[in-house]
């Protein structure tokens, strides 16, 4: 393979993984506040459909994205509100919404199936795109990709460098302690679930308007579940979540690259491989970091800790009764 093919492969991996980055970061924000939004897969489908339909009908990409984000935010808020104000189980509500929204997207989206529609144009960043190797791969993309870079960096800064970010981390870890420090836990949970949901909606629309253009039944093919797994894989850390999204994208395109090289292997193997590899990665992470550490040489310990230590927010999925 010559370098041009590699660069083009990396470019397409980054572009096709971008919706997953949005979904992962959105769910990360929601879960960091202590709410598990399991409606992801359905939300993304409905948002992908709504975003495409709106852009198709109105001719405005902006309106398409806006509607998709609104859809994502509203569904997420149903999950948060039913837990906080109606004492319902987050997992159950999220799962039911996933199933419901997937069907709604198929039903409402019937008349938009396989229509040629608008898409987000590419835009090379002058200067940066001229860099050797990474220039074309990272900076000759569409606007949404650049937005995802900024989002990942911005969320990291928010979490680890700002006061509101510190408060966010505290409400997901120990809401009682946060409340004692004057933080309105449940209101913040609603806010972050809404923002996270909007990003999940953006993920849907960026898929149907940038990656796999248009709409069809089950268009986003399980992206929500992958995003949920990647948040865990990424240990609720924005950089690692983004890395997880790109890794999954790379595994997928590796499959399509390998297919012509090994024509005797059934294509289904290459299609299924990324999911299986993801499970292996998850198994490693879900295991006790300390246990993995003990079995490896001591000099690898810091690396193991950095990669595998997962910080499940201690208050995740736990209702907080405000006094």
């Amino acid at each position, binding site marked *: 393979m010559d370098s041009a093919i590699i660069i083009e492969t990396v470019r397409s991996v980054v572009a096709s993984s971008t919706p997953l980055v949005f979904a992962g970061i959105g769910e990360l924000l929601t879960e960091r506040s202590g709410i598990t939004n399991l409606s992801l897969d359905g939300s993304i489908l409905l948002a992908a459909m709504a975003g495409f339909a709106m852009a198709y009908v109105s001719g405005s990409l902006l309106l398409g994205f806006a509607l998709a984000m609104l859809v994502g935010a509203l569904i997420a808020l149903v999950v948060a509100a039913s837990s906080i104000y109606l004492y319902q189980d987050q997992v159950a509500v999220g799962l039911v919404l996933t199933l419901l929204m997937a069907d709604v997207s198929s039903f409402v989206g019937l008349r938009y199936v396989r229509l040629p529609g608008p898409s987000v144009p590419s835009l090379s960043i002058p200067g940066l795109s001229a860099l050797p190797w990474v220039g074309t791969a990272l900076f000759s993309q569409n606007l949404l990709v650049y937005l995802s870079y900024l989002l990942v960096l911005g969320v990291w800064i928010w979490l680890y*460098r*700002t*006061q*509101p*970010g*510190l*408060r966010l*981390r*505290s409400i997901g*870890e*120990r809401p*009682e*302690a*946060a*409340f*004692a*420090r*004057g*933080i309105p836990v449940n209101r913040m949970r609603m806010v972050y679930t809404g923002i996270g949901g909007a990003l999940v909606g953006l993920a849907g629309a960026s898929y149907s308007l940038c990656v796999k253009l248009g709409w069809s039944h089950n268009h986003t093919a399980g992206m929500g579940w992958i995003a949920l797994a990647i948040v865990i894989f990424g240990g609720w850390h924005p950089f690692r979540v983004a890395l997880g999204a790109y890794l999954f994208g790379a595994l997928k395109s590796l499959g399509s690259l390998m297919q012509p090289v090994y024509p005797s292997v059934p294509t289904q193997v290459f299609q299924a491989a990324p999911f299986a590899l993801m499970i292996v990665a998850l198994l490693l992470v879900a295991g006790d970091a*300390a*246990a993995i*550490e*003990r079995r490896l040489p001591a000099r690898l310990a810091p690396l193991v800790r950095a990669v595998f230590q997962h*910080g499940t*927010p*201690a208050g995740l999925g736990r209702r907080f009764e405000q*006094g």
Partner: protein
Amino acid sequence: MKIEIQGINKSFGAVQANADVSVTVASGTIHGLLGENGAGKTTLMRILSGYLQADSGEIRVDGGRLELHSPADAIGQGIGMLHQDPLDVPALSVLDNFALGLHRGFWQRRGRIQRTFFNLCRRFGVQLQPEDRVGNLTVGERQQLELVRLLALGVRVVILDEPTTGISEPQKRLLFETLHRLAEEGLTVIFVSHKLEDVEMLCSVATVLRAGQVVGELRAPFDRERLVEMMFGRAVVAPPFASRCTTREALDIQSLVVESSRMRMAPASLKACAGEVIGLAGLEGSGQRLFMEACAGIRKAQSGHLVIDGVDLTNGRYRDYLDQGVAYVPASRLEEGLVRGLSVREHFVLARQRAGFLVDWEAAEQVASARIAEYSVVGTTGSRVEELSGGNQQRALLSLLPDSLKLLILDHPTRGLDLGSGIWVWQQLHERCLQGTVILFASTDLDELVDNSDRLLVFSGGKVSQPVASAEMSREELGFMIGGVNL
């Protein structure tokens, strides 16, 4: 700030936790609030610090009426509370915890926050590393952090709820020094405790609560007997320790080495006779827990031997330990000892009906009701364990133990219990010694260790002393050994 609590009433369902409680706390004093568990001390303090709303009554601060709707309101009014279980965020660093809720701005000014933090730490002789994870600190250190944080928030009234439970002797000394200094600087300190000696050592005034009501107020120097009578409504005295030690060797531990991901314990050896009580002294996390878990068969030992009544159990199956008559009572009753959500009756099924498929509810009910009567557990066989008070949870745990045991291992058997319950627990344990049970127990309370054991093993940073006779140890010597001197 002078605090006047006037005629506070607070009920939870049918239980009246506070009944017409009035207490006046003078500015610049350390005021003790004494009472046994369930006397209503914590409820009263949670009202004063904004966590609960009183049903009726009022609180005046320097003459003005205090209106509180949340703990943050109370902080704003200069009233801060240090909870028995520190109310911090374990996953965050020391500095993040310190900064949380301290400033309004957008950016974290870590440099500035760190300077404030270090200044306060230096002033009060507290040694904390700003980047350490709070979850890795001892309870005592987390308490120091919370105290420093409250001071940074500018509180003028500090409420401490049972602060000496689970902290080491030096940490306690530092805490008391700090509280004296705060009082000298004009802060008001309210010290909630059921430990007489702490109140005697620290407070200038003490108000005693019993069953939700104020029984009376005493000034230092305190008359201990009078305090006890006020707390319990009668005189309570622990019977002096009488050794039930026999000459028959029942436990033989040879160079036992235990290891966790955090610590490797030096080899420990111990021979104990039937009926002997061995106390395990040391700061929390010095290796006692590893040692106990290995003796109980929960944790594998790296090397060494454990022989009970001539049977070598080293690294055997846990089942074999149970069959041989080994039992372990952990310190965190609700987390490791009991199963949240299950009733007392169901616990007896779990503990006693190990064979068979169908549950024999009738037998379980019989044994459960007989045992809870015998152990005077306040509750019914259908009560879920988390509904019981701390003292009753411990009674329930002890009632679940089989009648005859060869080795009984207890981690902090009287933690969180009031004087009366603590004495009762030890009476039960010493009675077991009469049947030849060897008791191993860990505690951080020097008095409990010396008063209830034949011999002591002292743990310090994973090192273990030779067994020493308790009667020959002074509190000072023991304190030095715990600190790692002369080990």
